[in-house]
């Protein structure tokens, strides 16, 4: 039911939220999350995001299905961008519609925690000084967050 999209282009979070709720009278809660590119105190020129085409979409769709099994959700959209992303730009969108706020928030958090650790994306920083930085290392804290949801 939910939509998983992986794309180079930016997205319109407002339009995604409207699409989740438009014409519906059973939705009481829409929890949304937008992940944005920080400039790391001015040092970062862009993030470069690599992904595994085909698997990235499939993995996101799989975890959306897991969330839909776990909570009574009325709509889910997840978008993850790849390519070069500048500071201030949007990277990821998670929108979850439900009758009540508890499941909307829980599912949105589970989805973003999972995107951080289980979806096949890799980030690298490109510095303002022209250097290509190391690949971002996985954060133990992200892995611990994702483990809250056991096997999604």
């Amino acid at each position, binding site marked *: 039911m939910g939509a998983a999209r992986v794309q180079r282009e930016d997205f319109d979070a407002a339009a995604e939220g409207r699409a989740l709720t438009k014409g519906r009278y059973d939705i009481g809660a829409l929890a949304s999350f937008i992940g944005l590119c920080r400039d790391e105190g001015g040092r970062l020129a862009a993030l470069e995001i*690599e992904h*595994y085409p085909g698997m990235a979409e499939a993995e996101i769709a799989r975890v959306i299905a897991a969330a839909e099994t776990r909570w009574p959700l009325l709509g889910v959209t997840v978008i*993850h961008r790849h390519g070069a992303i500048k500071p201030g730009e949007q990277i990821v969108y998670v929108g979850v519609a439900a009758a009540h706020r508890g499941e909307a928030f829980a599912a949105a958090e589970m989805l973003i*925690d999972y995107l*951080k650790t*289980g979806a*096949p*994306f*890799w980030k690298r920083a490109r510095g303002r000084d022209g250097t290509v930085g190391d690949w971002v290392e996985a954060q133990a804290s992200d892995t611990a967050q994702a483990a809250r949801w056991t096997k999604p």
Partner: protein
Amino acid sequence: MKALYFAWVRERIGANEEELAPPAEVATVGDLVAWLATRGENYAHAFEKPQVIRAALDRVHVGREAKIAGAREIALFPPMTGG
């Protein structure tokens, strides 16, 4: 079988993908990583810490004990950092 490499695994090997024909005794993902590491300096560098390498068989995450027989596509990559 087709092998795909991502992020610094891809960079160290110097290839996005390649066809692999491992010998018959290479049964698991762990075996394949160990076998690849013997194929040259670039592979040895990519797989110098095999415990951090993640794998997917036909686009599904698997552990190092997973059997590779029958898989059409194996991907090897570092821990993921999306979101």
